[in-house]
């Protein structure tokens, strides 16, 4: 079970990362739980200042950009 965390206050960019993450989960065919982290203190605690951020199983994969579903799927099956 993978844990995918999307970090951001809930603006349109964060929603796009979440949508891409859902697509990636289907693409990679893995079991995953998607969490949305909106508390700015928690976001900053990861060292991220530019949202949206993406963390998979505790590893920061991207921030300040919108990774494609293909990119996220690659990280999921690594």
């Amino acid at each position, binding site marked *: 079970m993978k844990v995918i965390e999307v970090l951001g206050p809930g603006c349109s960019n964060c929603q796009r990362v979440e949508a891409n993450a859902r697509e990636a989960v289907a693409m990679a065919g893995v079991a995953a739980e998607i969490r949305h982290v909106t508390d700015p203190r928690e976001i900053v605690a990861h060292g*991220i200042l530019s949202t949206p951020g993406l963390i998979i199983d505790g590893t920061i994969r991207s921030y*300040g950009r919108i990774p494609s579903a293909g990119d996220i799927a690659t990280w999921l099956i690594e």
Partner: protein
Amino acid sequence: MTTLTVHRSRWPFWPTAAGAALAWLIGWFVNLPVANWLAYDVLRLKAGTHLGDAVAFFLYDVPKVLLLLLGIVTVVSFLRSYFPPERMRAALAGHGTLPATVGAAGFGVVTPFCSCSAVPLFIGFVEAGIPMGVTFAFLISSPMVNEVALVLLWGLFGPGIALLYMAAGLTVAIVGGLVLGRLGVERWVEPWVLEVRAGGGATSLDLRLSVEQRFRDAWTYTRDLVRKVLPYVLLGIGVGAFIHGFVPTDLVAQIGGRENPFAVPLVVAIAIPLYSNAAGTIPIVEALLGKGLPLGTTLAFMMAIVAISLPEFLILRRVIRARLIALFATVVVVGILAVGFLFNALGL
């Protein structure tokens, strides 16, 4: 064995980029003859008439502004990807107030920033022990010396006005940041924000991206931006074309002229509700400047449009009290008025 295909077939990167650059250049050079041909030969309008000039202006300006936005915003966003806020924070932490304030204003020009990140950025700066005035210098400079505004100014009025605008914007940001820093504004910051202060500097995240990946991101960003601002650009150029063709020069000079001391505050008041639609407003400004609106008044108008953003103030309300937001807005408005009056007084 199962094969997983996660990558869709994509265009090969370098040939596509080279082809796009070539198409851009061709479009740039054929734009004027094509616009004139359409207006005066195809539509059979007469050169020198109000309608003919307005239509030719519109047909020339729409492709020009779109080409400028597409081309230069892509390149600028690519370059900006090398200066993320995380890197800026690491660079600013632990320096004196003056160098950090100047640095933050400078980073405002190159650091990619969207106002939805304003809260994490604010907290992250507090956490790293960066003085409050430095944060405000960045928050003033980032939207004001914004890449879209600079690109359009450069393309429409040349490097002189673009650089003057940038210098004026940086000065407002630096002076504004220093002034706010001296006012002890911490007391109007929400207490839970100050609790995160560790004061121990900051580490910078460092995820490396390939050049190709950065270009792809830049192109996606530009495409979305152009799609978003396109209606405003068309509207702005339409109004601009109308002013260009029909509004008498005397009228603009009379109302907005240098002799009218209320012109600068008036345009700033008009600009405040027009926040962030720089792309749509610059074509109007282009037409007004052509009709004799003084440069100081014009620059004040543009700065007020991009720098005073009510949505950003609402977002910042989560971390700072309304009184500090009002103070922040006042400092920015005073700075913009000063720029307008100064440039008009210098007779530029």
